[in-house]
Protein backbone atom coordinates (compact mmCIF):
# COMPACT_ATOMS: atom_id res chain seq x y z
CA UNK A 1 0.00 0.00 0.00
CA UNK A 2 1.07 3.55 -0.67
CA UNK A 3 -0.48 6.96 -0.23
CA UNK A 4 -1.61 8.68 -3.40
CA UNK A 5 -2.73 12.28 -3.81
CA UNK A 6 -5.23 13.18 -6.51
CA UNK A 7 -4.95 16.86 -7.37
CA UNK A 8 -7.73 18.23 -9.53
CA UNK A 9 -7.03 20.82 -12.21
CA UNK A 10 -10.07 22.14 -14.07
CA UNK A 11 -11.97 25.32 -14.91
CA UNK A 12 -12.45 26.05 -11.21
CA UNK A 13 -8.66 26.08 -10.78
CA UNK A 14 -6.51 23.74 -8.71
CA UNK A 15 -8.05 21.66 -5.95
CA UNK A 16 -5.11 20.16 -4.07
CA UNK A 17 -5.59 16.85 -2.27
CA UNK A 18 -4.06 17.41 1.15
CA UNK A 19 -5.25 14.17 2.69
CA UNK A 20 -4.43 11.45 0.16
CA UNK A 21 -5.72 7.87 -0.01
CA UNK A 22 -4.05 4.55 0.83
CA UNK A 23 -4.11 2.38 -2.31
CA UNK A 24 -2.43 -0.86 -3.43
CA UNK A 25 -0.76 0.60 -6.53
CA UNK A 26 -0.82 3.22 -9.27
CA UNK A 27 -3.40 1.29 -11.29
CA UNK A 28 -5.82 1.56 -8.37
CA UNK A 29 -5.14 5.30 -8.23
CA UNK A 30 -5.82 5.59 -11.97
CA UNK A 31 -9.16 3.86 -11.53
CA UNK A 32 -10.09 6.21 -8.67
CA UNK A 33 -9.17 9.17 -10.87
CA UNK A 34 -11.31 7.91 -13.76
CA UNK A 35 -14.27 7.32 -11.39
CA UNK A 36 -13.80 10.81 -9.95
CA UNK A 37 -13.74 12.43 -13.39
CA UNK A 38 -16.94 10.60 -14.40
CA UNK A 39 -18.55 11.72 -11.13
CA UNK A 40 -17.56 15.34 -11.75
CA UNK A 41 -18.80 15.20 -15.34
CA UNK A 42 -22.15 13.77 -14.24
CA UNK A 43 -22.68 16.73 -11.92
CA UNK A 44 -21.70 19.10 -14.73
CA UNK A 45 -24.13 17.37 -17.09
CA UNK A 46 -26.98 18.09 -14.65
CA UNK A 47 -26.08 21.77 -14.78
CA UNK A 48 -25.85 21.79 -18.58
CA UNK A 49 -22.14 22.49 -19.05
CA UNK A 50 -19.51 19.81 -19.59
CA UNK A 51 -15.92 20.95 -19.68
CA UNK A 52 -13.45 18.21 -20.59
CA UNK A 53 -10.32 20.34 -20.48
CA UNK A 54 -9.35 19.40 -16.93
CA UNK A 55 -7.14 16.66 -15.59
CA UNK A 56 -6.31 14.88 -12.36
CA UNK A 57 -2.68 14.69 -11.36
CA UNK A 58 -1.80 11.59 -9.37
CA UNK A 59 1.15 12.06 -7.04
CA UNK A 60 2.73 9.39 -4.88
CA UNK A 61 3.82 10.20 -1.38
CA UNK A 62 7.31 9.00 -2.25
CA UNK A 63 7.50 11.95 -4.66
CA UNK A 64 7.70 9.75 -7.74
CA UNK A 65 6.81 11.36 -11.03
CA UNK A 66 3.18 12.35 -11.25
CA UNK A 67 0.74 10.88 -13.74
CA UNK A 68 -1.93 12.94 -15.45
CA UNK A 69 -5.39 11.58 -16.24
CA UNK A 70 -7.19 13.86 -18.68
CA UNK A 71 -10.95 14.33 -18.31
CA UNK A 72 -11.26 13.58 -22.03
CA UNK A 73 -9.64 10.16 -21.56
CA UNK A 74 -12.24 9.09 -18.96
CA UNK A 75 -15.24 9.07 -21.29
CA UNK A 76 -16.05 8.16 -24.88
CA UNK A 77 -17.97 10.85 -26.71
CA UNK A 78 -20.40 9.97 -29.47
CA UNK A 79 -21.48 13.16 -31.17
CA UNK A 80 -23.94 13.67 -34.02
CA UNK A 81 -27.32 12.05 -34.39
CA UNK A 82 -28.01 8.46 -33.42
CA UNK A 83 -28.65 6.20 -36.38
CA UNK A 84 -32.02 4.68 -35.55
Amino acid at each position, binding site marked *: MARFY*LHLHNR*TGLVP*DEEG*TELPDLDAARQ*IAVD*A*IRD*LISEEARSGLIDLRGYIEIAEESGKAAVRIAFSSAVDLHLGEASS
Partner: protein
Amino acid sequence: MIERHFMKLRARDEISAEEEQAIRAAVSEVRDYPADRTFIRSGEELNCSTLLLDGLMGRYKDLRNGERQISELHVAGDFADLHSFTLKHLDHNVMTLTPCHVALVPHDRLRAITEQYPHLTRVYWFTTNMDAAIHREWELSLGRRSALSRTANLLCELHVRLGLVGLADETGYDLALTQLELAECLGLTSVHVNRTLKELREQGAVDYRRGHVMLLDLDLLRRIAEFDPAYLYLDRRAR
Protein backbone atom coordinates in the same frame (compact mmCIF):
# COMPACT_ATOMS: atom_id res chain seq x y z
CA MET B 1 -20.41 10.40 29.16
CA ILE B 2 -23.94 9.02 29.03
CA GLU B 3 -24.95 12.63 29.85
CA ARG B 4 -24.90 13.36 26.13
CA HIS B 5 -27.69 10.82 25.65
CA PHE B 6 -29.76 12.69 28.21
CA MET B 7 -28.92 16.02 26.58
CA LYS B 8 -30.27 14.65 23.30
CA LEU B 9 -33.46 13.29 24.90
CA ARG B 10 -34.08 16.32 27.10
CA ALA B 11 -33.84 18.62 24.10
CA ARG B 12 -37.12 16.99 22.98
CA ASP B 13 -38.94 16.02 26.18
CA GLU B 14 -38.70 15.92 29.96
CA ILE B 15 -36.94 12.89 31.38
CA SER B 16 -37.51 12.35 35.11
CA ALA B 17 -34.77 11.40 37.55
CA GLU B 18 -36.39 7.97 37.92
CA GLU B 19 -36.44 7.45 34.15
CA GLU B 20 -32.82 8.55 33.91
CA GLN B 21 -31.91 6.02 36.57
CA ALA B 22 -33.73 3.27 34.68
CA ILE B 23 -31.77 4.04 31.53
CA ARG B 24 -28.45 4.16 33.39
CA ALA B 25 -29.24 0.83 35.03
CA ALA B 26 -29.98 -0.74 31.65
CA VAL B 27 -26.32 -0.45 30.56
CA SER B 28 -24.58 -3.81 30.98
CA GLU B 29 -21.07 -2.79 29.97
CA VAL B 30 -19.02 -0.09 28.30
CA ARG B 31 -16.53 -0.80 25.54
CA ASP B 32 -14.02 0.95 23.34
CA TYR B 33 -13.80 0.26 19.62
CA PRO B 34 -11.02 1.45 17.32
CA ALA B 35 -11.81 3.52 14.23
CA ASP B 36 -12.96 1.76 11.03
CA ARG B 37 -14.43 -1.26 12.78
CA THR B 38 -17.64 -2.78 11.48
CA PHE B 39 -19.06 -4.04 14.74
CA ILE B 40 -22.55 -4.91 13.52
CA ARG B 41 -22.94 -6.84 10.30
CA SER B 42 -26.18 -7.13 8.42
CA GLY B 43 -28.02 -10.37 9.18
CA GLU B 44 -26.13 -11.07 12.38
CA GLU B 45 -28.35 -11.99 15.37
CA LEU B 46 -28.26 -9.21 17.98
CA ASN B 47 -29.22 -9.29 21.64
CA CYS B 48 -28.20 -5.79 22.67
CA SER B 49 -28.31 -2.24 21.33
CA THR B 50 -25.29 0.08 21.20
CA LEU B 51 -25.42 3.55 22.72
CA LEU B 52 -22.65 5.78 21.41
CA LEU B 53 -21.07 7.73 24.26
CA ASP B 54 -18.20 9.31 22.37
CA GLY B 55 -17.03 9.23 18.76
CA LEU B 56 -18.62 9.01 15.34
CA MET B 57 -20.33 6.04 13.66
CA GLY B 58 -22.11 5.30 10.41
CA ARG B 59 -24.82 2.97 9.20
CA TYR B 60 -23.97 1.67 5.75
CA LYS B 61 -24.82 -0.76 3.00
CA ASP B 62 -22.43 -1.83 0.25
CA LEU B 63 -22.24 -3.46 -3.14
CA ARG B 64 -20.15 -6.43 -4.29
CA ASN B 65 -17.65 -4.09 -5.94
CA GLY B 66 -16.91 -2.58 -2.54
CA GLU B 67 -18.78 0.69 -3.07
CA ARG B 68 -20.34 1.81 0.13
CA GLN B 69 -23.21 4.16 0.97
CA ILE B 70 -23.36 5.53 4.49
CA SER B 71 -27.04 6.17 5.20
CA GLU B 72 -26.78 7.98 8.53
CA LEU B 73 -24.09 9.26 10.86
CA HIS B 74 -24.32 8.81 14.60
CA VAL B 75 -22.90 11.28 17.08
CA ALA B 76 -22.30 10.99 20.81
CA GLY B 77 -25.58 10.46 22.64
CA ASP B 78 -27.25 8.44 19.84
CA PHE B 79 -28.32 4.84 19.97
CA ALA B 80 -26.72 3.40 16.82
CA ASP B 81 -29.16 0.51 16.62
CA LEU B 82 -32.11 0.95 18.93
CA HIS B 83 -34.12 -0.57 16.09
CA SER B 84 -32.29 -3.88 16.54
CA PHE B 85 -34.40 -4.29 19.69
CA THR B 86 -37.41 -5.11 17.52
CA LEU B 87 -35.66 -6.16 14.30
CA LYS B 88 -33.22 -8.60 16.01
CA HIS B 89 -30.96 -8.51 12.96
CA LEU B 90 -30.29 -5.56 10.71
CA ASP B 91 -30.43 -5.02 6.96
CA HIS B 92 -27.33 -2.83 7.16
CA ASN B 93 -23.93 -2.66 8.83
CA VAL B 94 -22.76 -0.26 11.52
CA MET B 95 -19.14 0.88 11.70
CA THR B 96 -17.03 3.21 13.78
CA LEU B 97 -15.56 6.15 11.87
CA THR B 98 -13.41 7.35 14.78
CA PRO B 99 -12.37 5.55 17.98
CA CYS B 100 -15.66 5.07 19.85
CA HIS B 101 -16.66 4.70 23.47
CA VAL B 102 -19.96 2.82 23.70
CA ALA B 103 -22.44 1.45 26.21
CA LEU B 104 -24.21 -1.82 25.54
CA VAL B 105 -27.86 -2.15 26.50
CA PRO B 106 -29.18 -5.73 26.41
CA HIS B 107 -32.51 -6.18 24.67
CA ASP B 108 -34.04 -7.88 27.70
CA ARG B 109 -33.37 -4.73 29.72
CA LEU B 110 -34.91 -2.61 26.97
CA ARG B 111 -37.92 -4.90 27.12
CA ALA B 112 -38.17 -4.27 30.88
CA ILE B 113 -38.05 -0.51 30.22
CA THR B 114 -40.85 -0.76 27.67
CA GLU B 115 -42.95 -2.65 30.21
CA GLN B 116 -42.25 -0.43 33.21
CA TYR B 117 -41.85 3.02 31.63
CA PRO B 118 -44.42 3.66 28.89
CA HIS B 119 -43.20 7.23 28.54
CA LEU B 120 -39.63 6.10 27.84
CA THR B 121 -41.05 3.65 25.32
CA ARG B 122 -42.64 6.59 23.49
CA VAL B 123 -39.44 8.64 23.77
CA TYR B 124 -37.41 5.82 22.22
CA TRP B 125 -40.07 5.25 19.57
CA PHE B 126 -39.73 8.99 18.83
CA THR B 127 -35.94 8.68 18.46
CA THR B 128 -36.23 5.85 15.94
CA ASN B 129 -38.83 7.96 14.07
CA MET B 130 -36.27 10.73 14.05
CA ASP B 131 -33.67 8.39 12.52
CA ALA B 132 -36.20 7.70 9.78
CA ALA B 133 -36.67 11.46 9.27
CA ILE B 134 -32.90 11.85 8.87
CA HIS B 135 -32.87 9.04 6.31
CA ARG B 136 -35.61 10.84 4.35
CA GLU B 137 -33.63 14.07 4.36
CA TRP B 138 -30.55 12.20 3.09
CA GLU B 139 -32.74 10.61 0.41
CA LEU B 140 -33.77 14.10 -0.74
CA SER B 141 -30.10 15.09 -0.74
CA LEU B 142 -28.87 12.03 -2.62
CA GLY B 143 -31.68 12.11 -5.14
CA ARG B 144 -32.20 15.80 -5.75
CA ARG B 145 -29.72 18.17 -4.15
CA SER B 146 -26.63 19.31 -6.03
CA ALA B 147 -23.27 18.19 -4.66
CA LEU B 148 -22.77 21.65 -3.15
CA SER B 149 -26.17 21.83 -1.49
CA ARG B 150 -25.97 18.21 -0.30
CA THR B 151 -22.60 18.75 1.33
CA ALA B 152 -23.80 21.98 2.93
CA ASN B 153 -26.89 20.22 4.26
CA LEU B 154 -24.87 17.49 5.94
CA LEU B 155 -22.62 20.08 7.60
CA CYS B 156 -25.71 21.99 8.81
CA GLU B 157 -27.30 18.81 10.17
CA LEU B 158 -24.19 17.83 12.09
CA HIS B 159 -23.88 21.36 13.47
CA VAL B 160 -27.35 21.05 15.01
CA ARG B 161 -26.96 17.46 16.21
CA LEU B 162 -23.53 18.03 17.74
CA GLY B 163 -24.69 21.32 19.24
CA LEU B 164 -27.48 19.57 21.15
CA VAL B 165 -24.91 17.41 22.93
CA GLY B 166 -22.46 20.22 23.61
CA LEU B 167 -20.00 19.38 20.83
CA ALA B 168 -20.56 22.37 18.54
CA ASP B 169 -20.95 26.09 18.98
CA GLU B 170 -21.63 29.01 16.66
CA THR B 171 -18.04 28.95 15.38
CA GLY B 172 -17.99 25.29 14.36
CA TYR B 173 -17.18 21.77 15.49
CA ASP B 174 -14.67 18.95 15.21
CA LEU B 175 -15.47 16.33 12.58
CA ALA B 176 -12.85 13.65 12.07
CA LEU B 177 -14.14 12.21 8.78
CA THR B 178 -11.84 11.36 5.90
CA GLN B 179 -12.65 12.68 2.42
CA LEU B 180 -13.62 9.16 1.44
CA GLU B 181 -16.00 8.72 4.37
CA LEU B 182 -17.60 12.06 3.60
CA ALA B 183 -17.88 10.94 -0.03
CA GLU B 184 -19.60 7.74 1.12
CA CYS B 185 -22.18 9.84 3.01
CA LEU B 186 -22.77 12.11 0.04
CA GLY B 187 -22.79 9.60 -2.82
CA LEU B 188 -19.81 11.36 -4.40
CA THR B 189 -16.16 10.53 -5.01
CA SER B 190 -13.54 11.93 -2.66
CA VAL B 191 -12.12 14.20 -5.39
CA HIS B 192 -15.59 15.63 -5.94
CA VAL B 193 -16.03 16.18 -2.21
CA ASN B 194 -12.70 17.95 -2.11
CA ARG B 195 -13.74 20.28 -4.90
CA THR B 196 -17.12 20.91 -3.29
CA LEU B 197 -15.51 21.81 0.04
CA LYS B 198 -13.23 24.21 -1.78
CA GLU B 199 -16.23 25.88 -3.38
CA LEU B 200 -18.02 26.22 -0.02
CA ARG B 201 -14.84 27.77 1.36
CA GLU B 202 -14.47 30.18 -1.57
CA GLN B 203 -18.09 31.26 -1.26
CA GLY B 204 -17.32 32.13 2.36
CA ALA B 205 -19.80 29.65 3.89
CA VAL B 206 -17.68 27.06 5.69
CA ASP B 207 -14.08 25.92 5.93
CA TYR B 208 -13.73 22.18 6.60
CA ARG B 209 -10.14 21.08 6.78
CA ARG B 210 -8.04 18.84 8.97
CA GLY B 211 -10.87 17.53 11.10
CA HIS B 212 -12.48 20.84 11.94
CA VAL B 213 -15.55 22.52 10.50
CA MET B 214 -15.21 26.29 10.80
CA LEU B 215 -18.47 28.09 10.14
CA LEU B 216 -17.72 31.26 8.22
CA ASP B 217 -21.31 32.28 7.50
CA LEU B 218 -23.95 29.94 8.90
CA ASP B 219 -26.87 31.78 7.26
CA LEU B 220 -25.20 31.46 3.88
CA LEU B 221 -24.42 27.77 4.47
CA ARG B 222 -28.07 27.13 5.38
CA ARG B 223 -29.27 28.97 2.28
CA ILE B 224 -26.96 26.93 0.04
CA ALA B 225 -28.24 23.76 1.71
CA GLU B 226 -31.91 24.81 1.79
CA PHE B 227 -31.54 23.57 5.34
CA ASP B 228 -34.72 23.36 7.41
CA PRO B 229 -34.03 21.80 10.84
CA ALA B 230 -37.71 20.78 11.18
CA TYR B 231 -36.74 17.18 10.32
CA LEU B 232 -34.60 17.09 13.48
CA TYR B 233 -37.68 17.74 15.65
CA LEU B 234 -36.16 20.30 17.97
CA ASP B 235 -39.37 21.12 19.81
CA ARG B 236 -39.49 20.11 23.45
CA ARG B 237 -42.86 18.59 24.28
CA ALA B 238 -44.54 15.61 25.93
CA ARG B 239 -44.15 12.57 23.69
